[in-house]
């Protein structure tokens, strides 16, 4: 097995319950470097919980999640936070940009949090805004731009730190078809260029069609086509 095909993320028998309700009930999956994987399933099937577990945001009740061979639950909270900043990027359904900051400052924020000085951070942020075709709104605040523009800014923010994995939770869920497709094209093109893997949670088949393969989650169980074969 070459380094390129070694699993980046490996989840085995992951379980997570909220009270008496099992959100995940034995999820298995493998994510490899550079691949775009769609996590699909109906509402309430556990796909967002799975994403949160994979990203180290939520700690599973049982099961294992390894990132590049390291067990996530064996890390301290501080180590997991550092990992999220250094290796992961996030795009959510509603951008979740900081409303008080300009788009440029929003995109530069992950770099600033990692200790990059303001000027070089904003220079990189400006390059990413240009790449995501939203350079013209860099001085505007999130309240002054459209939903589609906001999601492109969010994609720029997710990719600016050169992450190994981008977690995208329904990134087009609040957009119309045209803007949703534009965001997906830009996200997957940028991830392909940088070599980042994308874990894409979606219930929309047309969005999932931008992935390389899909993992179906139903009743908290995942069916990973790669694991099956």
């Amino acid at each position: 097995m070459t380094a390129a095909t070694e699993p980046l993320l490996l989840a085995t028998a992951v379980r997570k319950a909220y009270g008496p309700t099992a959100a995940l009930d034995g999820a298995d999956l493998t994510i490899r470097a550079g691949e775009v994987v769609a996590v699909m399933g109906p509402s309430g099937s556990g796909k967002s919980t799975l994403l949160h577990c994979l990203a180290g945001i939520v700690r599973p009740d049982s099961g294992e999640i390894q990132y590049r061979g390291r067990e996530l639950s064996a890390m301290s909270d501080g180590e997991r936070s550092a990992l999220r900043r250094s290796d992961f990027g996030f795009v959510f359904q509603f951008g979740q940009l900081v409303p008080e900051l300009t788009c440029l400052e929003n995109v530069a924020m992950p770099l600033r949090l990692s200790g990059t000085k303001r000027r070089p951070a904003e220079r990189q942020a400006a390059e990413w805004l240009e790449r995501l075709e939203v350079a013209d709104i860099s001085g505007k605040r999130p309240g002054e731009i459209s939903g589609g523009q906001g999601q492109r800014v969010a994609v720029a923010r997710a990719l600016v730190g050169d992450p190994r994995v981008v977690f995208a939770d329904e990134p087009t869920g609040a957009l119309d078809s045209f803007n949703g497709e534009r965001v997906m094209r830009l996200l997957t093109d940028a991830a392909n260029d940088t070599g980042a893997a994308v874990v894409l949670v979606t219930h929309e088949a047309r969005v999932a069609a931008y992935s390389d393969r899909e993992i179906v989650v139903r009743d908290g169980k995942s069916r990973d086509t790669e694991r099956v074969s």
Partner: protein
Amino acid sequence: MSIGHTLLGLLESGPRHGYDLKRTFDERFGHDRPLAYGQVYSTMARLLKSGLVEVDGIEPGGGPERKRYAITDAGITDVATWLAQPEKPEPYLQTTLYTKVVLALLTGRSAADLLDSQRAEHLRLMRELTRRKRDGDLADQLICDHALFHLEADLRWLELTAARLDQLAAEVTR
């Protein structure tokens, strides 16, 4: 698709030879399914007979490929009527997929597996169309989008059916 109306519509911009009509049709609408020459000439013969086109000139040498066709006033009216008439939405009330699901339930096979493998097959085609759309021009994008929306509708049906399998099983095996 009505080949006759499409060829008539292409003639509205000016008279054309049969081979020119075929080439323009293939470029704009043919994509994976180019028109056969025989189909062009048989269609033009029918349109001539109905008075919707006329022969505008014949180049020396004879043969159907030498004729130049022009649309008549009746032909222009026919195109206008066709364009104004909404297409009948196709309801697909008797689907093979539904039949397969019911048969799987009746014979004790896994309908869930059937739906899963169908979903994978639909997504495989949707990925192919999405790639083609990304690399293609606007015409490719619009044609692929049309196919993608239909495939997506199928997938939504697959999801809904998967969610109702227990209920359906109870009804068909009652």
